[in-house]
C-alpha cells in the first residue's frame, strides 16, 4: 500500500529500535491500557501533522481520527522490523492530507481555511497570539512540498532520512525544499525580526 523508504538500510537501522513496537504489540492484543497509551503518544502528533499541513482544525481532527483508526486496524497484523511504526503512521497521515489538499484544488474554495485554534493561553498575551497567527498564515502560504518538508523536519522532528523517505526524495532534495521554504518564511516574517520596520508602516528611507 505504501512506497518503500528512499533509504532501506537506514530504515532497517531505525526499525531495529522502534520505540513503539512493544506498545503496538499490546494494542494488537486489545490491551485497553496500551490503547490509551498509544492515543496519548500518537494522537497529538497526528493532529499536529494534519493541522500544519491543512491549516484547518476541523479537517485536522478528521484526519487524525482516520489515521488512528487505520493504526488500530493495522496493529494486530503489524510485522516488526519492516519500518518504524511512527514513520508508517506519518505516511498514512500525509496520504490523508494529500487527499484533502487534492480535493481543495478540484473544488476551489473562496478562501483557504485559516483558523488558528485554540486561542492563546492566558499567560501568552496578544502579541504572542498575533505572532503565532502570522507564522501560521506564512506556513500555509508555502508551496505544498516546501510546507511538508518544514512540517516533517521542524514540527514532527523526524530524522532527515525518515522525512526524505516519506517524501520520496533524496536527503539533498529535501535540503533544497527546506532551504527554499525557510527562506520564504523568513522573508514573510522579516518585519517581526528585532530592529525591523513594522509591516505596513513603510519601508526604509
Amino acid at each position, binding site marked *: 500500500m505504501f512506497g518503500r523508504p528512499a533509504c532501506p538500510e537506514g530504515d532497517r537501522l531505525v526499525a531495529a529500535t522502534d520505540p513503539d513496537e512493544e*506498545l503496538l504489540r*499490546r*494494542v*494488537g*492484543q*486489545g*490491551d*485497553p*491500557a*496500551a*490503547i*490509551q*497509551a498509544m*492515543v*496519548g*503518544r500518537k*494522537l*497529538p502528533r497526528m*493532529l*499536529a501533522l494534519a*493541522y500544519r499541513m491543512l491549516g484547518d482544525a476541523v479537517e*485536522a*481532527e478528521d484526519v*487524525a*481520527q482516520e489515521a*488512528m*483508526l487505520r493504526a*488500530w*486496524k493495522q*496493529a*494486530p497484523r503489524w510485522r516488526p522490523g519492516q519500518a518504524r511504526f511512527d514513520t508508517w503512521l506519518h505516511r498514512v497521515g500525509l496520504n490523508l492530507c494529500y487527499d484533502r489538499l487534492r480535493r481543495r484544488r478540484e473544488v476551489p474554495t473562496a478562501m483557504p481555511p485559516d483558523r*488558528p*485554534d*485554540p486561542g*492563546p493561553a492566558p499567560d501568552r498575551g496578544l502579541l*504572542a*497570539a498575533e*505572532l*503565532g497567527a502570522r*507564522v*501560521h498564515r506564512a*506556513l500555509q502560504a508555502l508551496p505544498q512540498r516546501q510546507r511538508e518538508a*518544514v512540517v516533517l*523536519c*521542524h514540527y514532527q*522532528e523526524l530524522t*532527515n*532520512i525518515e522525512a526524505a523517505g516519506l517524501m520520496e526524495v533524496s*536527503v*539533498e532534495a529535501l*535540503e*533544497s525544499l*527546506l*532551504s527554499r521554504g*525557510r527562506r520564504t*518564511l*523568513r522573508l514573510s*516574517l522579516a518585519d*517581526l*525580526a528585532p530592529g525591523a520596520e513594522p509591516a505596513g508602516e513603510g519601508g526604509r528611507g
Partner: protein
Amino acid sequence: MNARRMTEGRIAELAEAWGGDVRRWPEGEREAARAWIEAHPDAADRALFEARQTDAALDAAPRLAVSAALRDRVIASAVGAGLRVRAAWPGLRRLLWLGGAGWAAAACAGVVFGATLSGHLALERQVEAVLDLASMTGLDDTAVLG
C-alpha cells in the same frame, strides 16, 4: 555529501535548511559541523543567527490541543476497528453482570436474538472498558510500559 569539507558557507547552507540546532542536521555532516562551530564560535554565531530566528518564529505558531471529545472518539474507534479489547479490572463485575443478562435474554427470546444482543452489549462493554481506563488519572506510557 559526507566527504564535503566543512566551511563557513556550508555551515550557512546547513543552517538555512535544517535550522539552528545541529542535532537536526544530516548525520554524515554533524560531527564535522560541530568541530567547525567549536573552532570558529564567532563565525558560527553569525551563520546560525538567522536560522535560530526562523526556528523561534516557527515555534511561535499555534498548537492544536487534543480535545477530550476527539480522544474519546479515537479510543472508541479501536473497538469499531475490530480490536478485541480485554476487560479492564474496574469494570469486570459489570461485565459479568451484563454477560448474565445477555444469557437470560437468549433464553427468553431465542438463541439468534440473544446472540445479537450479547454481541451488542459486549461491543459496548469493550468501548466502556477502554474509556474507563482513559478516565483514570496519572496513566501514561511509563505506567503502561513499566
